[in-house]
């Protein structure tokens, strides 16, 4: 069975991405592998002391969000798993795609409001994944 890697979070925009990924997985008879990258670089903008392992907290939150996504997929009849990665988003995506030997990588189109992942950045990342790994990557 082929594997589709889908980067997702919570929120309305991510729900749309998940719905589209579930539909594609059904068409291809594939299983879904959701990924959340725990990135805590925003704490560098904080002027006060950070004594907490912020990435671990965000990792736990990501696991919960992906578990919700997994349940949605399974309710729609699509097998799904999830993985939470740390560090740089682009590198984490490439590494997971390579290690899990996925067949397709799906990114959600950035929402209207501010977003970590801008469209231009995602287009470049799709080209990199296709060029470097030979894996199809799309923005839905």
């Amino acid at each position, binding site marked *: 069975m082929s594997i589709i890697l889908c980067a997702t979070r919570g*929120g309305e925009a991510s729900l749309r991405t998940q719905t589209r990924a579930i539909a594609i997985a059904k068409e291809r008879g594939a299983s879904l592998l959701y990924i959340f990258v725990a990135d805590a670089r925003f704490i560098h903008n904080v002027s006060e*002391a950070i004594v907490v*392992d912020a990435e671990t907290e965000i990792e736990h939150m990501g696991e919960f969000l992906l578990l919700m996504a997994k349940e949605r997929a399974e309710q729609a009849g699509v097998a799904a798993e999830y993985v939470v990665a740390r560090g740089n988003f682009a590198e984490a995506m490439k590494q997971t795609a390579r290690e899990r030997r996925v067949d397709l990588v799906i990114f959600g189109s950035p929402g209207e409001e501010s977003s970590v992942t801008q469209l231009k950045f995602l287009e470049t990342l799709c080209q990199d994944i296709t060029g470097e790994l030979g894996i199809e990557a799309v923005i839905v």
Partner: protein
Amino acid sequence: MLDLIRSLRRAVRRAGPLSRHFNIIILVSVLFLWLCARLPAVPAAGQDGEGVAPSIAGRVLDSQGGPVGDAEVFVYVDGQDEPIAESISHFEDGTFLAELPGHLSRATLHLEIKRPHFEDKTLSLSVEDQADLRDGNTIRLLDIVLTRRVTLGFWVATLSFVGVLLLMAFERLHNTTATLLGASVILAVSYIGGAFFPGAHIISFEEAIKHIDFEVIFLVMSMMIVVGILEGTGIFQWMAFMAYRLSRGRPIILVIILVVITSVASALLDNVTTMLLMAPISLQIALALNLDPLALVIPELMASNVGGISTLIGTPTNILIGSYADIGFNDFLINLTPGVAIALVVLVLYVRWVYRAEYRKIAGGISPTLYAKLEDNAQIKDPAKLRKGLIVFAVMLVLFVAGDALHLNPAVTSLLGATAFLVWVDTDIERMLEHVDWTTLVFFMALFIAVGAIQEVGLVSFIADFLAGVTAGQPVMGLIILVWASAFISTAIANIPFTAAMLPVIGFLSVGLDPGHTKYLFYGLSVGSAMGGNGSLIGSSPNVVAAGILERAGYPITYAKFLRVGMPAMLLTVLTGILWLLFRFFVIPA
């Protein structure tokens, strides 16, 4: 004495190995006492048989009545180039004592007082004073008031400080790098520029170091270790999960419990840590209840900004204020906590109205798998460590409260607590010291130097003069203007450098206030700078943390969106805070 030593030696030889150690200690102690007794006694002042030298005592002040330290005081005989005596005023109170030679001629004496950033001052002594001095007496002069002088150094220090604030506001540099750059420019101009243009001198390294408040540094550092150990136990997440269970799916009950937990945690620990730990789990709880996560996280972070004000250790600004104005743990509890409690009630009523549609939603319920995951994420990770940690922390709180009576500095209490944590709760010193955010400590040190520089050159005095003119001796008006100004400024710029810069200003303004209430302006600064954080997304560090977590979860909050909710909350809570301060300091007798 020799007989005593011989008999002690014999006793040591007769004793076994254990008692021998004990005896050696006694022997050394006796020798030490004998040596002390043989030392010549230090004669007390005036008892050396040579009489007291004539001297001139006095105090150097600035135009606000604040002490001027490091002022050079020279005593000249008219017509001579070399001074016959000199002294330097004390940093703390501006006092000086110039001791004159024993035999004074009948020539006229005068004083010259020199201090960078002030006009030189010459003072002739009266005939009566000179006669007293010739009789070998000490005379006490009236306070000497120096006038500020705007130098090239004034402009360099002012521009450097404004540059630091702008670099931080526009995030062009890391806060620590920005303050370090500011401090370095100030010192570089003082030494390199000052060598060519004396007017460019701002502050010497020795003077700059004196401005670093090590009470703040040690308190912040120690609390980092305490918080670092406690946060790892999972207590915050467990409390949030318990709030979820206790509320039984009723959102407004959940919000009230979370507001109480967050405000208490922010008051006792620090609000950035509180939000970093509470926001992710609260977001999961919101999703479990089918609520918009903002409806839980925004009230929490507002409660965090407000709740932190109620204790000395709740916010970095309170730590700065407490150390500068000598306001203790109990003072904050008595003077601010009731006002904070009222402000929190107002806040809950406000968020209940803002998110009324969300809170009316009927909880959707979650699958057993998701519930298990939520429970798992909120588990106490190390019960034994938590038990020990809470015991030590409880003792620390008792010491903070009892500190005023024991004259125990809060920095010492926190240092004792941090050490107890390292000795008993978690002994891995390397891992524990990783909890210390050295970047923040360097930030504070560089900030103190930068603020010290604008204090040295007189910017602080000019601002204080301006504010004193605006308020024109009306304390109520002064307090109201201060709190609102602090609140609005804190919505735009980081409140730590703002508070640090305002402290000496308020110190000047507080001179001559009603002796029963000399500190209310400092409390006003605390209320304004912390509650002002609710006014905008960049108004406080917890806001930035919560926004970052919401963004990562896929629920971004824009500046405008936050402003719509945050600004009315700020206006309401600041108004409540002002009403409380007026009641506390102008209605209740001192």
